[in-house]
């Protein structure tokens, strides 16, 4: 089983926790109370290996962060070792896309560049390239009910995502539209990257170089009964 770390970022009340809840528990709570600090959850999905067509289980370890500005100083702790980031905005609130863009910038700037948090081999730069960022526009259900409510045009977000090389989807945590797909896409992408890494390592080894690839520090305790 492969484990990946995923962090949710975005302005407050854009629906980060609702997206996670839909993904992990397949429930939706209309009057969800806001997250304090950050919440840690995990959920596994199945993907197909494109070459062998076998099922692979991927476990996401998810940081659902509070969107408030005040906790911003804590954010690096959550995205520092992340493999993927889900940056969420609310398609009915234009400002929330600006906030999402600033998160994307911060991620591109910070992740992988810091040297203190990784093993001392020189693979650090890989992290930067390998962070999968998925932009998500939530609350599609509101727009379906009333098209007037839309404040962020799909095309704008698509264009931005293409420019920045991000994955993008509009979703609704309430109606469960596209939620599973988002995580599925991220999972497949991460798996692809991981396979490439392995291939690279194999090539290096074939050339006679020895590179012991340590897995990312696992948070899951091997002795725990519930893993």
């Amino acid at each position, binding site marked *: 089983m492969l484990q990946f770390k995923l962090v949710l970022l975005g302005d407050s009340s854009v629906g980060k926790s609702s997206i996670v809840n839909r993904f992990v528990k397949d429930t939706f709570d209309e009057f969800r109370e*806001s997250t304090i600090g950050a919440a*840690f959850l995990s959920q596994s999905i199945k993907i197909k290996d494109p070459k062998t067509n076998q099922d692979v289980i991927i476990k996401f370890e998810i940081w659902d962060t509070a969107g408030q500005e*005040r906790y911003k100083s804590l954010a690096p702790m959550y995205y520092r070792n992340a493999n993927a980031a889900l940056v969420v905005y609310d398609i009915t609130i234009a400002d929330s896309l600006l906030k999402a863009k600033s998160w994307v910038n911060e991620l591109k700037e910070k992740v992988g560049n810091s040297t203190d948090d990784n093993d001392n081999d020189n693979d650090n730069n890989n992290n930067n390239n390998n962070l999968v960022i998925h932009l998500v526009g939530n609350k599609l259900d509101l727009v379906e009910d009333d098209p007037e409510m839309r404040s962020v045009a799909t095309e704008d977000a698509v264009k931005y995502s293409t420019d920045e090389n991000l994955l993008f989807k509009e979703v609704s945590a309430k109606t469960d539209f596209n939620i599973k797909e988002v995580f599925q896409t991220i999972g497949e992408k991460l798996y692809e990257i991981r396979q490439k890494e392995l291939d690279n390592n194999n090539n290096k080894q074939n050339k006679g170089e020895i590179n012991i690839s340590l897995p990312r520090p696992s948070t899951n305790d091997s002795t725990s009964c519930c893993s």
Partner: protein
Amino acid sequence: MVNISNSDEHKTFNNNTTNKSGTIRFIPGFNSISKATPTVSIALNNSRGTTDLSITAPSDIINNNSISSTSSHRLLPESTKSYSSLRDIEISFDESLSSRVPNKTSNGNINEVAPIEFTTSNSISQNEHNSYQEILTDLLSESFYSYTPSVCGMGRCGPSVVSNELPNIFNKSETLLSVNKQRLTRFNKNFFIISDAGKPIFTMHRDDKKIIPLAGIINTIVNYFQVNQQAEIKTIHFRNTGQKFVFLNKEHIIIMIHSNLGESFKILQDQCYFLYSYLISTLTSKSLERLFRNRSNFDLGTFLAQSDIENLNSICHLLSNNFYPDIFLNALQSNPIEKRIRNKIHKEILQELHENRDIIPRGTLLYGFLLIGEDTKMAAVIRPQGHTLYTHDIQLLFCLVRRHLHLNTMDRELWIPICFPKFNSSGFLYSYIKTLSLKNKSVMVLLSAQKDAFFKLKLFGDRLLTRLGKDSHIAKIIISDNPCTGFSIKDIPAPLIHHFIFKSTKNAQYIMPIMEYNIKYQDVIENTVSCNDESENNQKYLGNQQKDDIHFMEDGIDLLNYQIKLQRYYMELHNSVTSEDGSKLQSRSVINFIQWDGITSKNISSYGDIDNLQSVNNRRIHIMGMVWCTPHFELYLISNNGVSDKGAISSSAKNILRWCQKHEQRLFIQNGAIF
């Protein structure tokens, strides 16, 4: 009673703030709004040493009947400490609460309640720790206690039945059900937080239109005393209605609580301070200072996150609609666990900690708790040698845990920064919170000073749980499927006692039996239907009651109403042995009885209230309460309905005391796992 707020702190604070600018500030927009709503106006004229403070307020703001009688009010600026006015309004400030005489029967709306008699004694000496029984007997034989009405109440026609339903002798309107959400005054208690520039930050019962002028009034009143008296206003008391307004003016933040519920000023002040502490716990005093330093008109209300508002709301509900004795006792509730098992838990924790020194090196884990139940009863404590956290700080943490439990999120492990105002008001600690069981609401909380210690604590927590889970006795307690943990009043040989609270002063912990508010519910109905020859209407009514029974159990309204009633009874008991400013009336030891007598009147139509059953079955109320405070313990108890015999109550009290002392190690956490 231990004073939560540090008096030294108050003094320093006063020195800092009394020399504020000499003008009364109105927030921009306040005037225009008050013009737009002509019912609100406030005028302060200061000419030649006489000041008229005239408040004309609409019924929306302060209860109609109370303010109309005191619409104009003359204050002499040079007079000393406390103003006792022409009418029954009392404003006190600058910590000068001493001149007030406690008025024990001032609850204007009590239904036919006999005067509450009030007796105290200070004759317990400390060295007689072992012979409480004799002392109590002696005390009881003193003539103080033979004053008939204090024992029997006024009406001796008496009930023939002793019932362990807990009727409500207090003002009916305080049950949740009758609350009309349209008007602010309908609330018996409300909480206001404003900035010292007069900007509203938070109100419990939110009504944005009305809050702005109210914030202006609060700010003006506070500033009036600062400017003219160089003093801090503390309280305003409307004697004829029992309404109290309590103020806390901290730097940049003003907190006011309005209450009709009969708490003493000290308790309300502690509650003000608790709200202030919440703000510190979420922001730290450092960043609060920073936010206001540059702009005194900073809008903290919009800066606060939605989660802060939700947290403040849940704290306010806890302080007004729930039974939450932690604050007035200044103690934490302990979860009784067999001594052997508790020791085992602590031993296992230490062992696990020792084995995992590589994962969590010294200094990573600061403190830890295992909590059980919705009311966060402590089952185990992990703490370092020589350090304890302040009760006040832990109460803030537990409030957060309560809310987390309320969210019912088993699969989410939380990592929450929290500042402990008493421990270090300028920095955050980080708390790892994991729900262990949704059934019995058990939670593990681990605290660290390092913001990236989450995975270390998580790993340790997971291993600890695995270890504890191996012991079937421990597992049964911490991850049991039984939602009710604790003990029942039936476990204790204390006849006629409905409920009690026992606080061990040494441990700063208290225990109480689980709430059994619906006990004998069915019996009462059967009795009534079969032997009572009441009108048809009542029978119909009872029929409906029975049908709705399950519904009530589900939505918990009964429980809330029950909690409010308990809160009121205990509040009166507590008030009877403390003066308004919170000091004990007698320095060392006090025993006091209160007899509540009354008749539940049938015309009170409080939907679904158990009291209505009571009114059919047994309309007279005779409840006796007793409070017994010594340097070592505090015991508060409430009798069943129909009891007015002090001898029986005191012998039950002695039994409770004996039981608590005998099982002390089981009931309270003595040391915890000390590393």
